[in-house]
């Protein structure tokens, strides 16, 4: 379909150990004919070696040697497949208690979350955790796949109980703007994954794939203001483009048009958009997601990290921010430690002034006083910055409301923050 040409839908999966996430992904790949002969052969071979009497589709995704040895997924893996309609990218994130950071990572780049529930266990602690993280990251489109229906005899009543339990969680959640779809499936046997199941004839809804195919990108995009952060300044210094001074970046949110009145931050200087370029062509406008180059009518000093916004849509500014942090490093976060804060492409020295509290990741989001945040902890913190930051609340603009903290010694990405 021409309208979906170049369209990609990014998914992430969340589930506890043995909920069958890898099996679900393997099943999707198999039933959409995305597994090539050589991969399928490898799966058949490995399944036989392991002594399974069925095809172990989880082998299609469990990549690293350590994982194959332990039979678990330990990092975010990316899986690709396409239908006649569009391309899909799945971030397969592990379900262990201790791997919150991986789920945050995988969810941060996806547009749709698939939460898996083992029908025998129903809504458990980890389901609450997955849903909580989903809401923290404001994922609008959620599919709740109740898996292993075959092991409860495809029982409608038990399924309804699970759905009712999940709906209680939805009521208790503070993020209301979601589309949540429940689907009973058996990933192992293929019921309601791609093809409709005869065993689940009582279920009138779409299969997982049917549902995904019907999601329209326009419906799940956030309605955000235009934020254009400069990545690099383009000065060709050739005869032909002697005076060309272009600002290259990827537009986060909204739309920019030639002639728009803009403000450059942090300087506060005002100008107008003179031209919008993509490669060797000029355009009248560009929208969210485009990697463009713009020029301004005035010759002013703009450098990497500067934010160009419409003058009537200024973001917040400040040297102090409050944010929910997900800690991702072995070294705990302690108050008054300094980090590089990377906001989009801008790097600022920062100090974590205080930890207001730790947030439990169960559905209650209960809070607890702590001295430090350990890996996989979530907490609310106050951060002091060396320079003014121009930001939005994460709920208003994801791209301009998130940041990472970088350890100044190890250089590792130690945490991710969502500005309040």
């Amino acid at each position, binding site marked *: 379909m021409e309208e979906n040409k*170049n369209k990609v839908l990014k998914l992430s999966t969340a589930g506890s150990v043995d909920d069958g996430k890898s099996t679900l992904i393997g099943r999707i790949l198999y039933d959409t004919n995305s597994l090539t002969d050589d991969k399928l052969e490898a799966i058949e071979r490995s399944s036989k070696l392991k002594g399974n009497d069925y095809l172990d589709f989880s082998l299609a995704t469990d990549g690293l*040697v350590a994982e194959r040895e332990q039979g678990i997924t330990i990092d975010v893996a990316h899986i690709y497949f396409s239908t006649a309609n569009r391309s899909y990218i799945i971030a397969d994130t592990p379900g262990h208690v201790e791997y919150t950071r991986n789920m945050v990572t995988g969810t941060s780049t996806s547009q749709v979350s698939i939460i898996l529930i083992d029908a025998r266990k129903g809504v458990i602690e980890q389901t609450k955790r997955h849903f909580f993280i989903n809401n923290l990251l404001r994922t609008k489109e959620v599919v709740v796949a109740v898996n292993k229906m075959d092991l409860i005899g495809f029982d409608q009543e038990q399924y309804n109980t699970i759905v009712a339990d999940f709906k209680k969680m939805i009521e208790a959640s503070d993020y209301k703007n979601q589309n949540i779809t429940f689907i009973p499936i058996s990933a192992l046997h293929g019921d309601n994954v791609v093809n409709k199941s005869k065993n689940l004839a009582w279920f009138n809804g779409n299969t997982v794939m049917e549902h995904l195919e019907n999601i329209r990108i326009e419906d799940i995009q956030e309605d955000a203001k235009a934020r254009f952060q400069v*990545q690099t300044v383009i000065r060709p210094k050739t005869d032909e483009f002697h005076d060309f001074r272009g600002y290259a970046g990827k537009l986060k949110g909204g739309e920019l048009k030639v002639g728009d009145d803009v403000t450059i931050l942090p300087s506060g200087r005002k100008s107008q958009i003179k031209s919008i370029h993509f490669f060797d062509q000029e*355009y009248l406008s560009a929208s969210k997601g485009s*990697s463009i*180059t713009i020029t301004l009518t005035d010759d002013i000093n703009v450098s990497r990290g500067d934010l160009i916004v419409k003058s009537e849509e200024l973001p917040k500014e400040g040297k102090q921010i409050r944010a929910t942090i997900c800690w991702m490093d072995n070294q705990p976060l302690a108050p008054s430690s300094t980090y590089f804060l990377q906001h989009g*492409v801008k790097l600022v020295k920062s100090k974590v002034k205080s930890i207001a509290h730790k947030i439990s990741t169960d559905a209650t989001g209960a809070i607890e006083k702590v001295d430090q945040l350990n890996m996989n902890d979530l907490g609310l913190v106050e951060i002091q910055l060396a320079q003014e930051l121009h930001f939005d609340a994460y709920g208003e603009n994801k791209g301009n409301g998130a940041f990472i903290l970088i350890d100044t010694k190890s250089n590792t990405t130690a945490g991710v923050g969502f500005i309040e």
Partner: protein
Amino acid sequence: MNEKVINNPLEDEAIYIFREVAGQFDKPVILFSGGKDSITLVRLAQKAFYPAKIPFPLLHIDTGHNFPETIEFRDQLVKELGLELHVHYVQDNIDAGNVQEESGKYASRNMLQTDSLLQAIEKHGFDACIGGARRDEEKARAKERVFSVRDDFGQWDEKNQRPEVFDMLNGRIDFGQNVRVFPISNWTELDVWSYIQQEKMEIPSIYFAHKRNVFERDGLIWSAHDEYVFRADDEIVTEKVVRFRTVGDMSCTAAVESFAFDIDKVVEEIKASTISERGARIDDKRSEAAMEKRKQQGYF
């Protein structure tokens, strides 16, 4: 004047990554093999910095066992775009006794590239090496980051990778470390071919169906090029119409029978294909964890 810039998420993402490399590193280089993925990289880099020239040189690790068509193509492209090209020869390393040539039926110089790559990085002080690897190619690559930090020995520590959240890329490194950058991480083989088709890009002729002297081994079609590729006396040479899906060292790249003489036919063929691209890479068949092991040692 055009109305509105048309979104292509994969292209926009790759351009964003290229611009981050320019913003965060002092001495980046594009690893260029002359294959379709590296040609695509060059195209994306052109788009990222236009109307300025691509601000990075190219680096080719030359095994000496190349398809001549690829080398011709490489030199032509470099000339057209006015780029700087560094070539490091695996042969030099063999002659110096730093590495030992493999022998026997499956002898290949593919593994030997790693040493030459690390030497080139050290010699020129490259802090970011941009490569055309894609996550869909292989299971270990599915876990690779966009910015992948390597230590002084080029080693990949897969258990200790930096999380990559949203589109924020952390390229901070210590002296001696370098980052491998993969702008087309999220592209599939079909995405690359469709892009080549859409952009009407030139690619080496060996990607299209042509007559070639070949022999069969282990169900794969090998180029009969006795100088580089070992062939036993009972492995008989015949002429077939073939093309290559991937272009590496001649000794580790198998051909496929094909009548796809132009890009439209190639795209059709890839869409209908039931064998993965790497299915024709002999180097990956060595063991199930072959790629992961090579990556830990500093392979691309």
